[in-house]
């Protein structure tokens, strides 16, 4: 072949290859979820992790003894402390409290001391500092309240009344529609959840151990009567969305849970409505305080992630920046499998959350047995005492912000995740933890406290520009 012929043949081959390449480019551009404007809120475009590869038949927490169910009246800190504050009188002491609280505090006198400490020591100091330093957080608070301003009506009826579709809605019949297969239905439900704006979605067979023995108030159950798990709570669909990232890094004062709470709550109510319109029972269990069950272990069962040292579920996509909600249903579904992405091994060496927690609520030791299951247990009283001492938005979430898994979705953090989930030796876990501690340190945990408690109202990272009240408001 002479030079001219060679160049001609090369030109033809290049044109063919270039055309094929253009075809592939066009195909990818056409199906790229980013081409849907506002795509982050639907299409499931962010649930990208290949969970099948890491699926296991059993979750990471181990059943190690006879199990028991949690009591929402005492184990859910807001409820216990709310009841305690309302009913405590110095002259009657423990005798003046409702019976279940008396029983609880007799068993846990240290917790009574912590609850009294909050009421008598922390609140007065918090109120004094509030007047002096609160202005700084006004925009953060306005934004948080705005995010919480829209909420579906609370479910205040028992499952047999509220969970089933009403006849009126379906005309003559409320019979369930005959679905072709549980597999297809699961696919449909996941698609609908994504379309409704859920970043992640998973399905679990409901383990009755996660249902509260004594439920929360205002959910339609008889007070102080054990909750019998309804037969139609067969499956649990878990949906979840992240809190806005920049304010989340500016915790504990500028971030809020309200944004993700509100989104997940609305999604759960809409998904429950969708299921009911197919003729099946559905009940949303939603943040902040409208649950009949504990959500994190269900999210683990549904394969969304693993529970970390700080007690929050860590997902491969969002880290622990996720606020989940659950829908219990009798719609036949195929449960997902729990996943093992090495979090238990990572948490063993990491401990960053424990070292950065201002209240010392996160354990530095190993997992322990809690109600028959082997897992990390945080001290909710210490945690809530810190929450209640601050001036910014309700909550703290420093443990969410500092966790190495809670990072943006860019090449650097995706690469680190890829290395860590595929490393059975744990060597990369130590290396990544070391880098995280040196490269991304936070302030001394004491600085997160209010000045009256020896702190500086510090945040893990500076607030985003749009929450800096001093830049917008004349004080």
């Amino acid at each position, binding site marked *: 072949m002479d030079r001219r012929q060679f160049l001609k043949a090369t030109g033809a081959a290049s044109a063919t290859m270039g055309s094929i390449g253009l075809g592939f480019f066009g195909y990818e551009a056409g199906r790229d979820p*980013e081409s849907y404007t506002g795509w982050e809120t639907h299409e499931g475009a962010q649930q990208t992790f290949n969970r099948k590869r890491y699926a296991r038949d059993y979750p990471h927490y181990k059943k190690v003894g006879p199990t028991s169910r949690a009591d929402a009246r005492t184990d859910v800190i807001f409820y216990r402390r709310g009841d305690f504050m309302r009913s405590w009188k110095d002259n009657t002491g423990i005798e003046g409290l409702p019976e279940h609280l008396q029983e609880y505090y007799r068993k846990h006198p240290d917790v009574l001391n912590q609850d009294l400490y909050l009421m008598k020591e922390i609140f007065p100091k918090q109120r004094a500092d509030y007047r002096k330093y609160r202005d700084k957080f006004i925009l953060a608070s306005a934004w948080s309240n705005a995010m919480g301003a829209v909420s579906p009506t609370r479910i205040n009826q028992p499952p047999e009344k509220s969970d089933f579709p009403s006849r009126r809605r379906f005309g003559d019949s409320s019979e369930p529609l005959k679905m072709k297969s549980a597999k297809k239905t699961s696919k449909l439900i996941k698609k609908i959840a994504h379309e409704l704006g859920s970043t992640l979605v998973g399905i679990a067979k409901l383990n009755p151990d996660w249902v509260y023995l004594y439920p929360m108030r205002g959910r339609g159950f008889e007070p102080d009567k054990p909750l019998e798990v309804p037969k139609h709570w067969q499956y649990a669909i878990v949906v979840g969305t992240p809190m806005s990232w920049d304010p989340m890094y500016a915790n504990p004062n500028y971030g809020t849970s309200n944004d993700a709470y509100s989104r997940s709550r609305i999604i759960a109510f809409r998904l429950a409505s969708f299921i009911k319109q197919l003729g099946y029972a559905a009940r949303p269990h939603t943040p902040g305080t409208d649950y009949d069950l504990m959500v994190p272990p269900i999210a683990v069962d549904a394969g969304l992630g693993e529970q970390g040292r700080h007690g929050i579920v860590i997902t491969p996509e969002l880290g622990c920046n996720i606020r989940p909600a659950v829908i219990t249903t009798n719609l036949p579904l195929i449960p997902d499998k729990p996943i093992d992405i090495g979090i238990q091994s990572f948490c063993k060496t990491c401990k960053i959350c424990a070292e950065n927690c201002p209240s010392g609520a996160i354990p530095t030791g190993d997992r322990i047995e809690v109600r028959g299951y082997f897992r990390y247990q945080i001290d909710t009283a210490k945690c809530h005492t810190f929450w209640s001492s601050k001036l910014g938005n309700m909550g703290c979430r420093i443990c969410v912000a500092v966790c190495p898994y809670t990072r943006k979705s*860019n*090449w*650097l953090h995706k690469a680190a995740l890829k290395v860590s989930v595929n490393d059975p030796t744990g060597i990369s876990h130590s290396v990544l933890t070391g880098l995280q501690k040196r*490269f991304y*340190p936070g302030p001394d945990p004491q600085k997160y406290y209010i000045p009256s408690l020896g702190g500086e109202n510090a945040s893990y*990272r*500076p607030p985003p520009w749009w929450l800096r009240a001093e830049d917008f408001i004349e004080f």
Partner: protein
Amino acid sequence: MHFFNSGLFWFLEGVFTCLTVIGFKIWMEDRGIPMPFWKWILLGIWVFFFGFTIAFIGTNLGEKEPKAALLGGIFFGLFAVITGVGLWRVLKIGKKS
């Protein structure tokens, strides 16, 4: 999508890489330094690491993590310089005087 995470950007990166490789090859030929395949592999690894260092600094600045950018820049940058000097000595093996 911004230019710097678009396909066009990576296309241009590819063109620049090709031109760099051609230029480097000619430069080495002029200096009488042979470039067998194993040298290209070593060079490729080093270039990848150097690129990682630059991108690490940029990403952390973009994430408003100046401390990570600085410390990572010093840590990985020093490593790149030291290994770069070592690599240059290795590349010179077989140089024709």
